[in-house]
């Protein structure tokens, strides 16, 4: 029996490497939950055993049920008939099975029927599911919506919605985007108003809403009439069947199993989540960080599938009397893919743990506050954890989504003309990958999100510590390369700062963020290589490649190649 968890040695490597001790202790309330729930772990080892066994269930479902249906799901797509959206039959079966296996409430608390899993483990499950069918991840990966209600809603809302998310009876949607508010969510117009009794209603249109047909919608709406920016927006929850019309579903390039809806809210009754005016600036930003991790895991799952297709095809396809696998040009492409796959995985699970840490410290602070205990120490810790999570998340999304596109592209290339044909899985993967660097914030928006912290060099002390660390003697060249990349980064940064030109800064941000990403990933893969001899190959190729790219990044910044931006109109429109 195939299993997408157990058959992936690299995922197992990262699972073994996870250090969730503090996180799980907080989440499990020092393992007091075990007294109340028979499925709760009694200690850390027991918790890890639970996660492993459950990921085995996910891996089994993904490999033996979800993956074999993916081609038919892609072909069949979703349907809108008389205002009702229906999933492809394979999607329906998979959703039913995921719910039956208790997997739709992985991160929700047990008292609402969930399993109280760390975010990191959930992200691992998302990668596994996406490898089987990227479009199913869009539905499986909506568990964050329930989690947002848990975090910011009131107890009554938690009780109303969460148990049904856990059983899979409810699926959700995040209704944020509008025709005129995509990357720029501050300009959301959908109107939220109150009647005399203070009850809220929603009126307006949302567009490009993944699973907009879901039973529970989280809606970003303008509650403060007359305002224009993000401070006039609040977050609402409403019932999808109550005054919400699916006007159309989009005909998309990829992820055909996931319905993308245009929604019309006709005085839809809604409940306010949390406090007014915090909709965008607090709740949606929080939700977005986790959603971006979901898309990163989706991108990685697609990358894994694309790599496997490419490898299999290259081994089978004989040209010039041998498998094309043996042609240096092809094997080099495969190695590039494999290296990208493994370093991306290191980054994803490192970031996932950072997000987990931030969320759990947040919960701890909240708990201490309620109990009237001192929490100043944890507040300092939280501040630092938040900064790191906020830096790593957009970098991860940027790197993994761009990389997934590159990998799907190369995997198709290795197939030659065959890969261009619908019969081959790689064709679907290339289409599915394309959305990952667009939704939940385009790559360009991820650069914007990361640029500020990168320019403030918030990992300065971390890199200092890494440079002081003693690595195996064989690693000295790689360590030197990373030191050189860091110097190159400072050189470029100094140049950008001294130029004091915001337009230039906006363009140079991409190179700066990339430079910083080489350092983050470089040290992660070096640490991996310390534990696993095979990873030395990966570290070697990644770090040497990164140095070459770093030199090019700095060259772009300093050569003045961007100076023509001032003449954009002349170049582009001939004016």
């Amino acid at each position: 029996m195939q299993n997408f968890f157990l058959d992936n040695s690299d995922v197992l490597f990262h699972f073994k490497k996870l250090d969730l001790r503090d996180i799980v202790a907080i989440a499990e309330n020092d393992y007091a939950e075990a007294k109340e729930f028979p499925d709760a772990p009694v200690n850390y080892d027991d918790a890890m055993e639970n996660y492993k066994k459950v990921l085995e269930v996910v891996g089994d479902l993904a490999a033996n049920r979800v993956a074999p249906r993916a081609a038919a799901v892609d072909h069949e797509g979703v349907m809108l008939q008389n205002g009702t959206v229906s999933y492809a039959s394979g999607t329906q079966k998979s959703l039913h099975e995921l719910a039956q296996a208790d997997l739709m409430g992985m991160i929700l608390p047990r008292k609402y029927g969930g399993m109280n899993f760390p975010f990191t483990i959930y992200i691992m499950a998302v990668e596994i599911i996406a490898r089987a069918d990227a479009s199913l991840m869009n539905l499986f990966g909506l568990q964050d919506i329930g989690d947002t209600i848990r975090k910011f809603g009131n107890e009554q809302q938690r009780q109303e919605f969460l148990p049904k998310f856990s059983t899979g009876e409810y699926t959700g949607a995040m209704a944020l985007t509008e025709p005129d508010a995509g990357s720029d969510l501050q300009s959301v117009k959908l109107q939220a108003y109150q009647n005399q009794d203070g009850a809220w209603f929603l009126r307006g249109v949302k567009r490009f809403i993944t699973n907009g047909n879901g039973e529970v919608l989280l809606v970003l709406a303008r509650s403060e009439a007359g305002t224009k920016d993000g401070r006039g927006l609040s977050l609402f929850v409403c019932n999808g069947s109550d005054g919400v019309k699916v006007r159309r579903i989009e005909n998309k390039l990829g992820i055909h199993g996931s319905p993308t809806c245009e929604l019309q809210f006709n005085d839809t009754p809604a409940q306010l989540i949390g406090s007014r005016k915090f909709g965008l600036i607090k709740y949606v930003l929080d939700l977005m960080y986790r959603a971006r991790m979901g898309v990163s895991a989706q991108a990685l799952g697609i990358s894994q599938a694309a790599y496997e297709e490419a490898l299999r095809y290259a081994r089978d396809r004989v040209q010039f009397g041998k498998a094309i696998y043996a042609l240096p040009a092809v094997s080099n492409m495969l190695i590039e893919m494999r290296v990208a796959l493994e370093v991306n995985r290191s980054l994803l699970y490192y970031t996932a743990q950072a997000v987990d840490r931030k969320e759990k410290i947040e919960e701890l602070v909240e708990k201490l506050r309620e109990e009237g205990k001192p929490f100043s120490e944890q507040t300092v810790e939280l501040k630092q954890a938040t900064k790191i999570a906020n830096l790593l998340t957009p970098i991860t999304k940027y790197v993994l989504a761009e990389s997934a596109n590159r990998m799907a592209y190369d995997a198709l290339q290795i197939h030659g003309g065959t890969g261009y044909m619908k019969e081959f899985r790689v064709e679907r993967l290339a289409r599915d990958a394309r959305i990952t660097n667009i939704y939940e914030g385009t790559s360009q928006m991820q650069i914007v999100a990361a640029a500020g912290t990168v320019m403030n060099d918030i990992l300065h002390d971390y890199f200092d510590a890494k440079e002081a660390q003693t690595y195996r003697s064989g690693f000295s060249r790689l360590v030197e390369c990373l030191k050189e990349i860091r110097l190159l980064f400072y050189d470029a940064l100094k140049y950008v700062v001294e130029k004091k030109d915001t337009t230039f800064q906006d363009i140079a941000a991409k190179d700066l963020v990339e430079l910083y990403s080489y350092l983050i990933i470089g040290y992660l893969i070096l640490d991996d290589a310390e534990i696993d001899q095979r990873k030395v190959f990966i570290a070697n190729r990644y770090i040497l490649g990164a140095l070459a790219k770093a030199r090019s990044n700095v060259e772009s910044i300093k050569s003045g190649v961007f100076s023509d931006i001032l003449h954009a109109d002349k170049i582009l429109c001939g004016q």
Partner: protein
Amino acid sequence: MYHSIVLVKQVPDTANITGNVMQEDGTVNRSKLPAVFNHEDKVALEIALQIKDTYGGTVTAITMGPPRASDILRECLYMGADRVYLISDRKFAGADTLATSYVLSEAIKKIGTFDFIFAGRQAIDGDTAQVGPQTAEKLQIPQITYVEEIRSVENGTVTAKRKIDGGFEIIRCALPVLLTVVKDTAEPRSFKAKRVMTYKGARSLMEIEKLVEGNSLLSVDALVHEYESRSLFIKTLTMDDLHLDLVRCGVHGSPTKVYKVESVVLNSGEHEHVEPTKAGIGKLIDKLMEDHILG
């Protein structure tokens, strides 16, 4: 509300036979093969669980086998079985279908009343399809074999569709009844994550005895009690727990003697080339009809 008992068996994973598994004498080296849940028995468990989902009741899974058969009982718990029993004793070893069905039927009498017994049509190691029917005979209850669909359960009867050569039969039968199912009857459900976490530590008597071995601080009785109190004890029935006639168990109770095992490889004597054209296919069909393979 219906109470079902499901007969399950752990078998060698014949789907993954590799080079060194087949021995020179044509027999299988079981120690080289991973042991798995016999698929049709898993289908039987699925049907029992579906009946429980629809009408309420309980599902009890039982297996006769060596101590390591506890693995599949844990899997039964992960899927949703309420209770599981391991029937295990060295004296049961070497049993053929007659001895097996004798022990199973006596164990079922001890376990209690039931409306249904479900079993897979056959196990992939023996391929006899006899244990289910023989168990029904010994319990003196009716049986429906080769079931591919449960049509309805009402007024103390079950209506089932059974596969027969060239067609099917619809049979209605009063409960209690034993049914054996084929692989297409249902797709077994996945493990339920919460049950996996809850029951991953479930242990049978033999597994507990193993824990106690070499540790003078532990006692079997105390540990069994502890596992029982946490609902993690896999109830274990041995020779001592059942009122059995020793000569009807294990090797003594098994008249089947394997005379010889031969590895038979069928080679095609001749072959004919068929052109992939309409005319070629037409000829092929004519030839097949001539030989009474078609039509």
